[in-house]
């Protein structure tokens, strides 16, 4: 499937794969951040709507 469009557009493969990688990297960074983030802080954030 990917081969189809990579073949048809010269030079486009670099930024298409680049954009997918951007997503993967960004997703991994957010994921990693969520793994190490302080639980107290997360709890505080999740209670924000209940505090007004």
């Amino acid at each position, binding site marked *: 499937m990917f081969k189809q469009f990579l073949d048809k557009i010269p030079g486009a493969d670099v930024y298409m794969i680049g954009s997918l990688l951007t997503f993967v990297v960004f*997703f991994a960074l957010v994921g990693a951040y969520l793994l190490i983030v302080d639980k107290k*802080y997360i709890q505080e954030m999740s209670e924000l709507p209940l505090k*007004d």
Partner: protein
Amino acid sequence: MNQESTIEQFSYDNRIVKNFAVATIVWGIVGMLVGVLIASQLFAPVMNLGNQYTTYGRIRPLHTNAVIFAFVGNAIFMGVYYSLQRLCKARMYSDLLSKLHFWGWQLIIVLAAITLPLGMTTSHEYAELEWPIDILITLIWVVFGINMFGTIIKRRERHLYVAIWFYIATFVTIAVLHIVNSFELPVSLTKSYMLYAGVQDALVQWWYGHNAVAFFLTTPYLGMMYYFLPKMANRPIYSYKLSVLHFWALIFLYIWAGPHHLLYTSLPDWAQSLGVVFSIMLIAPSWGGMLNGLLTLRGAWDKVREDAILKFMVVGITAYGMATFEGPLLSFKNVNAIAHFTDWIVAHVHVGALGWNGFLSFAILYWIIPRIFRTELYSKKMINFHFWIGTLGILFYAVPMYISGFTQGLMWKEFNPEGTLKYGNFLETTLQVIPMHIIRAFGGTLYLIGAIVMGYNLFKTMAKGSLLADEEAQAFPLEKAYIATGGDTYWHRWIERKPIQLLLVSLVVILIGSMVELIPTFMVDSNVPTIAAVKPYTPLELQGRDLYIREGCVNCHSQMVRPFRSETERYGEYSKAGEFVYDHPFLWGSKRTGPDLHREGAKYPNSWHYYHMKEPTSMSPGSVMPAYPWLEEQVLTTSDTKTKLKAMKTLGVPYTDYEVQNGNLTLDKQAQDITATLAKEGIKVKSDREIIALIAYLQRLGTDIKKTAE
């Protein structure tokens, strides 16, 4: 420092919330009423009410615009203005901007309600409004943005709760979508031509169309879900971490999915494939959000049994889950081959619209109104009644539409053992699903009754209480120079604290997908192979095309023969990208209530079209198409022919200066030729009538490519 001494007193603006709430109720009922009317037109043509301003083609966009931008739009602003103030612990930035936003938005709605029945339309689905209104939308959206960011900047809560992220992403993405999809060249105050043509126009439109669903009907509602559901259930969201992941993954992936609306069309294969891949990936964040919502109610299901507001939320979130499961399913090419252009899509969007948007809006209205009016709801029995009649309404709407969709999809493709189409006459397939359309209209009526009961209940509640226009609140101000320490030094925490950074990162995230999809289609010539035989429309055909747009024919007829044997057998040669290079705008359509028209040219004599437009049943007994007698009565406006040709020339259509200057001479000549052929068959009609131009256009459709074959 003694913090007690610095506490600040301020008030929340509830009047603006009330105004948007009232507008939500009123426009909701109006939009649904128009929905029921157009639903009935599909089985009883008499419901077109015999005049041009209420025919299906003109008021179907009125229904979609009313429910999307008037009902849902006002509901979004109601929810945002209520929750943003409280999450930021600040009054809205400017009361004047709030008022300007409210009245400006209502003005846009009124202008839409006037111009659409008059036939002033760009024909881009969900972006039908003409260019002056587009500019007004842009201005009012900027007012909303300034007001929102002003509030966020003067907030008294350092961190931005995830609901606000969704609001920011909504603001920035809708701004980008609206601007890019509104590049039009004005011809007059009420008419414009799209800058892009054919395939490129289609890609921009469905990049816009799909993401209008994503960033107008989904992200703001997810933001509201993350705020109001914890309030209603009195417990925090199930997983805040999941909401963070949900946010980024959703806004990144959604923007790529548009081309799934154009599978098997003349759009380049790579763009179709890209749309499919990302549409399938979308199920992960969508279901992450749905589960986060439903799991918030864990241990509180006893409350759901008692509380009708929570019932609305549960059904709404479940409908979101169903629609977002079905979306990726529909983007598989083999499923899409059957579902596209059928009622299946209508069922799909209404599960989302009636279930997700409708029910969440109702729940939030029921929750907010008694609070800002400091009273109890007028009648709890009525809410329960509304919930049950609304749910039944959705079922009576969706189930027959699914059956109808499957029926259409299968009948269109069924062959006899001899290899000919079993239902060669398209009309048979339309008539087959009429009972389903009757039940659908019944379902819509049930849903409308529920909304009217809600309106009554809420207005009674308002009358019973008194509006707390300025709700007193207090909070500590933020320290002016904040130095992040400990966990607050993380990079993501930096984004969470800064609204402008959040806006910029969101913008980058949505632009990545947009650029990868759009740029190659615009830059690479090989994506739209040119066909030498395809020539620009004659002046008369161009005027006829504008009538086709004015009457909204695109709402029932596609102009895209897909490369299936079942379609080439029925309609002729499949559509090529190069055939649409002069189509500003493209008119591929998204629904076939009637047959495809791309190969309509030269299929029937002129007289057939004349009689068919005057009274469709005279040529197709049993047809549900409305009659268009006014096309014979009205004189074609030709004073703008030169301006139109000039505009098309500016857009790159290769008219010569001679052709532009002498447009009306050529037009008259062709009109007289058509009138002469009609006269031979005993039809007396003047050559200056609109019907002549429309016949000229219909007879031209898809014929150029046949010239190549000769």
